[in-house]
């Protein structure tokens, strides 16, 4: 909780600071202070992200309790296996990202680049699977808005599915609204993440991050893991409600 500057701000350290280690910005006293500030800042940013998604989780909670049958029916139209595979893909990408951070820490340029590219590939795989799922929703008219149709819920073609009363079937639109809002926002975060990863790879080729200054890659790792955590919650909430029916 305390400023490292207090501990280091006496004369001798100041003299050292004037020697300006590489990557130390002028307004920080020490590299440690700079690094701590950066990761603290990143965590605060993630806090805002928690609240950003928190609003949607809140809405989900309310409507799930109000329209439970519609949510169950909506959930049953999702492909649980694609969801599970996507979860696995995302956890793998988290692992590769963690390993990338480790490689940067160990100053291994080659493995850093490999792991970053692996992370990109896994991220794109996730988005690919997601887009397959989205395309299916478009075909079934399950995208909220003008083209939304409740036909599948009132008269399901799948013999195992439970038919909903029309009034409850209408409420599946709330489920899909939240489904698209939540997974869409998550996908948007993935796309932003992949874009940044591409930049990181290019700069890693140039030798960045393996020279001891790895704050950027560390903080990006935090972001990537956070996106993973959001999916860890989205998966059970959207795919696994009362699956046994």
């Amino acid at each position, binding site marked *: 909780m305390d400023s490292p500057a207090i501990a280091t701000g006496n004369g001798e350290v100041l003299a050292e600071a004037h020697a300006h280690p590489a990557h130390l910005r002028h307004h920080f006293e020490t590299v440690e202070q700079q690094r701590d500030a950066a990761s603290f800042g990143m965590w605060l940013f993630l806090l805002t992200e928690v609240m950003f998604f928190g609003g949607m989780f809140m809405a989900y909670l309310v409507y799930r309790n109000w329209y439970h*049958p519609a949510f169950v029916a909506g959930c049953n139209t999702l492909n649980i296996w694609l969801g599970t595979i996507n979860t696995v893909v995302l956890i793998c990408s988290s692992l590769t990202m963690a390993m990338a951070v480790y490689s940067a820490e160990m100053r291994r340029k080659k493995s850093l680049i490999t792991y970053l590219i692996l992370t990109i590939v896994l991220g794109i795989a996730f988005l690919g699977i997601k887009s397959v799922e989205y395309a299916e929703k478009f075909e079934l008219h399950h995208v909220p808005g003008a083209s939304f149709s*409740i036909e599948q819920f*009132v008269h399901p073609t799948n013999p195992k599915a439970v038919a*909903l*009363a*029309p*009034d*409850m079937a*209408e409420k599946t639109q709330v489920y899909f609204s939240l489904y698209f809002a939540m997974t869409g926002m998550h996908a948007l975060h993935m796309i932003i993440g992949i874009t940044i990863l591409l930049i990181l790879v290019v700069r890693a080729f140039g030798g960045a991050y393996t020279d001891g200054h790895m704050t950027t890659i560390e903080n990006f790792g935090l972001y990537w893991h956070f996106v993973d955590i959001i999916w860890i919650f989205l998966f059970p909430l959207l795919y696994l409600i009362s699956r046994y029916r």
Partner: protein
Amino acid sequence: MSHISPVLWQFLTNWMKASPLFPPEASTIAPYADALYLFLVVITIIGLVLVGALVVGFSVRYRKERSPEATQIEGSTLLEATWTLIPLGLFLIAFIWGALLYFRIYNPPTNAMQVYVVGKQWMWKAEHPGGQHEINALHIPIGRPVQVTMISQDVFHSFSIPDFRVKREAIPGRYTTVWFEATQPGRYHIFCTQYCGTEHSGMIGWVTAMTPDAYAAWAAGSTSGASLAQNGERLFASLGCNACHSGDPAARGPNLAQVYDSRIRLQDGTTAVVDDAYLRDAILNPSQHVPAGYAPIMPTYQGQINEDGMIDLVEYIKTLHSNYRVQQTLNTTQLSSTQTNGAAPEAHAGVKP
């Protein structure tokens, strides 16, 4: 306010009525609201005078010319505690008093007369059970509690009668209620206070409070001919509700006679009190309101009945004390359906999406 000397109270109320600082007290709630208001105003004045006196007093006494030396003082826990606890106490009184008033405003007495209000951009439509329809106007008798059940057809509106000190938002998709008892004949403003679009400031009307006799005369003179319940009955028949809700023990739908205000068991094991909101919801979202022992076969009437029609239906079911009329209507429709060859089934098919 009985403990205040009557003379003083008289003086205060007369002054309040004469001055433009207060709106007239035209309902039974108004004096309660004004009493709380006065209490809060007094607190504010005391607070302001206290702060003002401290600031001005210290500024005069300790201005640089008189007090060239500042004496450094760290603080005082005792003083901090004082000005934490005293305001806290006062605020808590305001909280309790306000809560009591709130429940007075929103808990209608059971004998209240019913009026329905539908808000839409940009007018208030008032409907009396006797079939009197008014736009941007509301006629009520004095000396009788009036419960207003409202709903909005489009956006949020807010039904406000400042002279009665009551206000409630009319919300799309849900009934809200407020009640008041006018004490003096007169005309009072109705405002829409929730911003609702272009003509928001045009959404105003008048409450006319009348003596009971005058009200009776007005009610007799301005009825549209059919009461809300009668309109509801017509709608009930034309939508084919009586096909299932016939009152027969073997009928597919539950018996609706005397169902209003009763507590019923639902299919999922919970119980619910049948009030206006329940009836409305059960017609629009029947699958969430299936009574125990019945199959969830009722179709939804979402998008087929406007809010006025809903009010007619609700009012009809409210006044349904026996099934005599239902069976009569049923007989006529069955008769007509056999005559016209399937008019009723068509109507039935029409309600399926």
